[in-house]
Structure formats: structure tokens, C-alpha cells
């Protein structure tokens, strides 16, 4: 074998070796690129992608801002609504208190009128007492649990019992009144011409008690207008 031929053989073998090695490396790289495509992607491709993502993030941030603004607006509206409704509820409560549709509590006086053998308590006595209490600034009044409201009435039914709000009540008549305790008490117990003195003089049993914590029940019947509008 010639020396030149050996050189040629070795050279060509080496070249083929390099070529196949490179080809296989390339095959392998391309094969595995799918798995780790992101890592091996070209730099500019990655840059473009990053830019795209940045843009998307900016857009989304803008959207979030918009949405936050809307939420703030809605919350404002909700708050005003809430305030308004709270105000309305408070007003309604007050009106119900005035109308007598709620149980109310407060300081006031309890006047107890009891029938004696000599003298019976009449409806007139109770009406006079109510008048006196109202004059003294009573805010809520009840007679034996019957709340006195704007259309309450007190009438004698024969001589046997008294009807308040259509309910019959009997002695002892317990009249509760909430208001300024001092005014109520002094209004009723004026000397000589005061209610209590007058009634005591007539021989009727009248007892007045001051109390800090009186509960007056609500008016239980309906309060509806049928003809007035």
C-alpha cells in the first residue's frame, strides 16, 4: 500500500467522522428543542416575546385600573344609598314611635287609680288624667297596657267597665306615661287645684310613682285610613 493512499484514507475517514458527528449533534439538538424550546429559542425571538408580554401586562394593568375606578364609583353609590336608606329607616322608626307602633322605653310616672267602695273611677277621670299628662309633655301613654294613640278613645260602657281602644279594662287602672318626670309629677300634684289633690278630695284613690325605666307596649290594632286620603 502506498503512503499517499493511507493519508487519503485517514483524512477522508476523519472528515466523514466529523461530518456525521456534527449531523448527529444537529439531529439531537433539533429533536430536543421541542422539549426545551423556550430555553433554546433565538435571542431576538425571546426579546419580541418579552416585549409582547410587557405590552399585555401594561394593557391588563390599565384594565385593572379602570375596573378599580368603576368599583370605587360603585362603592360610593352604594354608600350614599346606604346612608339614604339608613336615614329613611331612622325616620321611619321615629315616626313609628310617635304613632305608637313601637314599644318605647324611658323615664316617667305611673299613676294608679283604684276603685274604692265609695267612689268608682269613671272614664272622665281617665280622660282628665290623659289631658293633664299631655299638658305636662307626656310622649307616650298607656292605660292598662292599652297604648294611647291619635285615635284612641276612652268611654264608659254602662257603669260596669271602661272601654279603651275597644278593649274593656277594669280597676286598678294603671296609667303609664313617659316624659319629663319632673314636669309630669309637678303637673299632676299641684296644690289644691292639681289633679291628684282634686281626685283625693273627691275621695278617689290616686297613687303616683316616679320610675326611671318604664316600658310602654305598642299599639296592636291596625292604623289605617279608609275614607281620608
Amino acid at each position: 500500500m502506498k503512503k499517499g493512499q493511507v493519508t487519503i484514507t485517514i483524512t477522508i475517514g476523519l472528515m466523514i467522522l466529523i461530518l456525521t458527528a456534527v449531523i448527529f449533534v444537529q439531529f439531537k439538538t433539533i429533536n430536543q428543542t421541542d422539549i426545551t424550546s423556550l430555553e433554546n429559542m433565538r435571542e431576538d425571538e425571546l426579546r419580541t416575546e418579552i416585549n409582547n408580554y410587557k405590552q399585555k401586562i401594561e394593557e391588563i394593568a390599565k384594565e385593572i385600573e379602570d375596573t378599580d375606578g368603576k368599583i370605587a364609583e360603585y362603592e360610593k353609590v352604594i354608600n350614599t344609598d346606604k346612608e339614604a336608606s339608613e336615614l329613611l329607616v331612622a325616620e321611619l322608626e321615629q315616626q313609628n314611635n310617635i304613632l305608637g307602633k313601637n314599644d318605647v322605653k324611658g323615664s316617667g310616672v305611673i299613676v294608679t287609680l283604684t276603685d274604692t267602695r265609695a267612689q268608682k273611677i269613671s272614664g272622665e277621670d281617665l280622660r282628665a288624667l290623659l289631658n293633664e299628662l299631655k299638658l305636662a309633655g307626656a310622649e307616650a301613654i298607656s292605660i292598662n297596657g292599652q297604648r294611647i294613640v291619635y285615635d284612641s278613645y276612652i268611654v264608659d260602657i254602662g257603669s260596669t267597665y271602661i272601654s279603651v281602644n275597644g278593649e274593656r279594662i277594669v280597676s286598678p287602672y294603671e296609667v303609664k306615661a313617659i316624659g319629663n318626670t319632673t314636669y309630669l309629677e309637678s303637673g299632676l300634684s299641684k296644690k289644691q287645684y292639681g289633679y291628684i289633690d282634686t281626685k283625693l278630695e273627691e275621695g278617689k284613690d290616686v297613687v303616683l310613682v316616679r320610675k326611671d325605666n318604664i316600658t310602654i307596649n305598642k299599639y296592636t290594632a291596625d292604623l289605617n285610613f279608609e275614607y281620608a286620603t
Partner: protein
Amino acid sequence: MIAIAIIVGCILGALIGMNVPNISYTYSGYLAIAIIAALDSVFGGITSVLKGNFDLKVFISGFFGNAILSMLLTWLGVKLNVDIYLAAIVVFVGRMFTNLSIIRRYYIDKWSKKVIKEETKNEDEKKTMGEN
């Protein structure tokens, strides 16, 4: 002799290629163009062997020179934002087809000459038999 060298080179090259760590995808484009250039040189070498004007120096310089040049051109193309590697691929693959067609023609010619020879031989034999 050379055939054995080629087979051994192929096997060893495959084994080495399988066990070498991956290259980054960024450079695989350059590698691909280098492979195309090298393959072109190989086919050109085969053609020149068939034509009888094979020169080892030309072959080696073409093999490595074309590969390196094509890689450089590709790099330049990336820098200039022009796809120069497309031109390289067109040239190399076109030349590969030309060389392949030359190789094909050479073997077809050889084969058809052989067939014609055999036919004439057969005819000669028939003639001789007929005369007998």
C-alpha cells in the same frame, strides 16, 4: 480500503455525535448551513473521483472552507438582517443536485454499456450456434 474508512468514520461519528452535549439552538442554524456545505463538498468529491480529477487538497479545503465561509455569511446575514443563508442553501443544494445527476448519469451509462455488451455477446453466440 477507503470504503472501510468511510464506514468506520460514520459509526464513530454517530457515536460521538450522540454522546456530545447539545449545542444552543442559537447556533444550530450555523451548524446546519455548515453541514449542507460539507455535504456539497462530499458530493463534489465523489463526482471528481468519477471524473478522475480528484485532488485531496482541493477536497479538504472545499470541505472546511465552504463550511466556515457559509457560517460566516450566515452570521453576516444575521447582523445585516438579511437571510443570506438562503442564498448559501440554494447554491449548495443546487450544486448537490448537479453532482448527483452527474453521478447518476455515470452509473447509468456504465450499466447500459454493460447491457449492450451482453446483448451483442448473446447475439454473437446465437450467430455462431446458427452457423453450426
